[in-house]
């Protein structure tokens, strides 16, 4: 009898424990923020390029300040609609905007509709940041709101004249190089155009095996670091300023596309990428004047502007978001999901802090003086 009673209580306790994270989320206070997300690269209805961002919006229970509803990943963004196969052309930003997030402007291409597993280049259907869109963004940008710009925004197919303006506004200068770490240089993840460009330029076959890093210049020049040139994936390392701002300690690795920018004085480097090079790797990069350390997160504290030198909001899997657990759980998720390690280790604390900063600014702005 006693055992039965004990089991019953245990079941109730376990059930309660199991339900607690979700229950806390339900009763968690919502954060009211007006956010505009720009993502032109939505060829499929997986919304991958802004998936990570919306996960955090839901996880932190950030709601639209106008209608007090959770942001909808399918509706609440400006860009390409994969269900209607149309791209929006008029960016509307409300007057009391708190945060503008430019996730991706690369766009949608003909081959994308055929799956395009090998990343073949094809005719652009929609994409590139226009002068008018950027003008609307800068028109809405004040000292009281935040702007986050992520790779790819200023690269192809954005017009070079627009890029120059964005660079000037963000106080950065793109070196012309982008790159990516591949765990297997023979995998289907390596775009076909990259292989073709390499083979055409070097007159050699793409015979790399194992891990490697490919760099592509805007002129289409390709530089490859083989497994003998590197000691693992690209390292993401916090600077002193980054650690102070985000209350983070652990560094991480980054395994997706990045760009290499040079910050101006106004920008603070909060984190940087470091390529773990061998001697041969150092020689290769030196020969092409490519830096092995370059900014990963840049922040202009005066203007409340951020530049992320990678596809940070891009997440491979849909994770359930409506729960509250200690921060150490993110670390556990990072270990369990190696492909999205950067998301759990870095992106969540960074964006959570940025949202909280925005919320504070909003609260101060709305505070009644009299």
């Amino acid at each position, binding site marked *: 009898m006693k055992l039965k009673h004990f089991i019953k209580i245990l079941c109730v306790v376990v059930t309660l424990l199991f339900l607690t994270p979700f229950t806390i989320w339900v009763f968690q206070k919502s954060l009211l923020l007006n956010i505009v997300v720009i993502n032109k690269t939505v060829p499929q209805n997986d919304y991958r390029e802004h998936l990570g961002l919306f996960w955090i919006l839901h996880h932190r229970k950030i709601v639209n300040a106008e209608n007090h509803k959770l942001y909808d990943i399918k509706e609440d963004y400006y860009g390409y609609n994969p269900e209607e196969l149309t791209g929006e*052309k*008029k960016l509307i930003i409300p007057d009391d905007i708190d945060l503008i997030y430019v996730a991706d402007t690369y766009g949608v291409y003909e081959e994308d509709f055929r799956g395009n597993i090998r990343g073949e280049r094809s005719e652009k259907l929609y994409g590139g940041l*226009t*002068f*008018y869109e*950027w*003008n*609307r*963004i*800068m*028109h809405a*940008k004040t000292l009281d709101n935040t702007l986050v710009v992520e790779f790819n925004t200023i690269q192809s197919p954005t017009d070079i*004249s627009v890029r*120059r*303006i*964005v660079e000037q*506004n963000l106080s950065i200068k793109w070196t012309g190089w982008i790159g990516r770490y591949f765990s297997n240089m023979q995998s289907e993840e390596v775009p076909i155009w990259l292989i073709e460009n390499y083979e055409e330029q070097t007159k050699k076959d793409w015979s790399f095996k194992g891990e490697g890093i490919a760099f592509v210049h805007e002129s289409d020049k390709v530089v490859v670091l083989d497994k003998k040139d590197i000691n693992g994936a690209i390292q993401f390392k916090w600077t002193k300023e980054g650690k102070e701002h985000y209350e983070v300690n652990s560094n991480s690795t980054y395994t997706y596309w990045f760009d290499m920018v040079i910050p101006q004085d106004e920008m603070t480097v909060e984190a940087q990428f470091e390529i773990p090079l061998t001697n041969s790797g150092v020689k290769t990069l030196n020969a092409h004047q490519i830096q092995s350390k370059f900014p990963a997160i840049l922040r202009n504290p005066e203007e409340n502007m951020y530049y992320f030198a990678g596809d940070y909001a891009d997440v491979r899997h849909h994770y359930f978001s409506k729960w509250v657990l200690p921060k150490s759980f993110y670390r556990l998720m990072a270990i369990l999901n190696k492909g999205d390690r950067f998301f759990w280790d870095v992106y969540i604390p960074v964006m959570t802090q940025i949202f909280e900063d925005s919320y504070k600014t909003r609260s101060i702005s709305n505070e009644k003086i009299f």
Partner: protein
Amino acid sequence: MKKFFNKMFTFCLWFLFLGSFGFAGGGYFLLFAVVPFEEWLVQKGLTQPEIDQMLKIAVVGWVLFGFFVSILFYIYFLRKRRKIAGIVTICMVLLAIYVYDQFMKTESALISFSQGEIEQSGERFTFGPYPDIKMLEKLKDDGYEGVITLLSTTLPFENELLEEEIENGQKIGLNVHSFPMLPWVGDNTDSLNGIKDLITSNEGKYYIHCYLGKHRVDIVKQLMTSVTGQVFEQRASIFPSDFERGDVFLFQDGKIILGPYPTEEEWSILIRNQVKEIVSLLPPESPKLDELYQIAEGSNIKIHAIQHDDLSINHLLEVKEYVLELKEKVYITDFKTSSTILALETMLRRKETPFIEQRLPERVKDIGQRIGGWGVVGPPLTEKEWGELKNSGVKTVIYLSTKDSPLDSSLREMIDSFGFHFIQYKIKNENDYRAMYEIAKDIWKHQGSMYLFSTLDMKSMTEILQGMYYGIDEARFESPKPVTIIERDILMGNTISSIEWEEFILKIGIQKIIFLYAASIHGEDILKDHEEKAKTYGVSFEVIPLFENYREKLYEEIKLTMGIKYIVIPPQMEREIEEVLTDY
């Protein structure tokens, strides 16, 4: 016989060289010499007719140069080094083929830049530029009955494209209906009738296009409206303030247009702007009258002709009353922008009677500067001349002075004795642009035609008045600031420095500043500074954010303002904005 063939071969080779060199070189000459040369001439402030003349000279020069080169080719190669001559000719032919191919590619960057957008108007009709085979396939998939092509068979490039389009249509099973139209007002009646018959004979969907999808499709849109009753969205366009034969003036939001007799290209601007009636002031013997009736008939335009050799003020008053009563758009025309046009402009703009040019004192006729049909700036006059001035219809006399140049009391008495309304303005000196700008604004409020005189140099005052109400004299204009002259009353350029407010804005009488504000380039502080300065100097100021829809707002502002508009632009956007401001 051999000698004959030899000579024939030499001639053929020479002819082939001449043709291919002329064509290939001509293509490059057009792109890399004529186009930059034209841009340079525009920047130099030359008028369109002057530019046209210069370009004609350049083209004739190219033809002569071609002949000269071919003669050199004959002397130095064909006669002496035939092998080299053969190779050079082959290269030249290949180059000519390449140039031809480039012109044929409608998707090339140069052509794409000028192409209009595809615009679906309702269920049945879609308007746009030349469709390639991919687009034809898509139209077929989308259930289109056919394509109506307006490409002209008389233009070699268009003819080639037309053949290609018909072939593509046959390949994929889509009807291509050719109704050739010329980009200017030619005899397009047959084609328009053909389109009318086609679209009324069935209920199918059609894609209608010309080369760029801009001008000819606009004319067809009007036909469609008259046939189907459906109103199609017209491409927003600006109306030029100069035609080849003189200035053009717009009233009542562009419903009444006043200007000289249009050239062929200018006629198409009127038709695209849906002018429904022409009021002609051409004299009865004018050779243009027949042409006018012919064009009007072909374009469904009504003609109201006032045929008098000497038009009086009363005739013009009748014209004014007539056009004010009309509900549709009307164009009033004389052969040139003459004193008749300026008199009518005064009646419509100031709602007043203009002065009579012929009755002005001889000295005023010779050296006086006209401000439209309502103002003259001239010297102090004699008693007889004041009388003649009164007789010409001038009602107000304005004297401009400094503290050191008071008006002689006897002169004042003389002016009063003729019953003029007398006003005196004081300025610090002849360079007091700020005061003169204020005076120029104030003068507009006074009634009737006016005569301005002074013992001072009135050059600056005249320039301010001219600028504020009409525009610059493009041929003589020397800008104190680097600007692009779009038209007599539209200038554009960079932001205005502190010194330029007096030395440029006030000095040339700019009526309004339109700030095309690019937040990403200008910055809010610059905008605020301009707003404050405009307020301080009393200059009208309007901000248009550079968003996707700036074009329509800009056109509206320009249409509503007389006199010079200075448009502040970000330098990065100069080319695009210039295109927008000249998209007639």
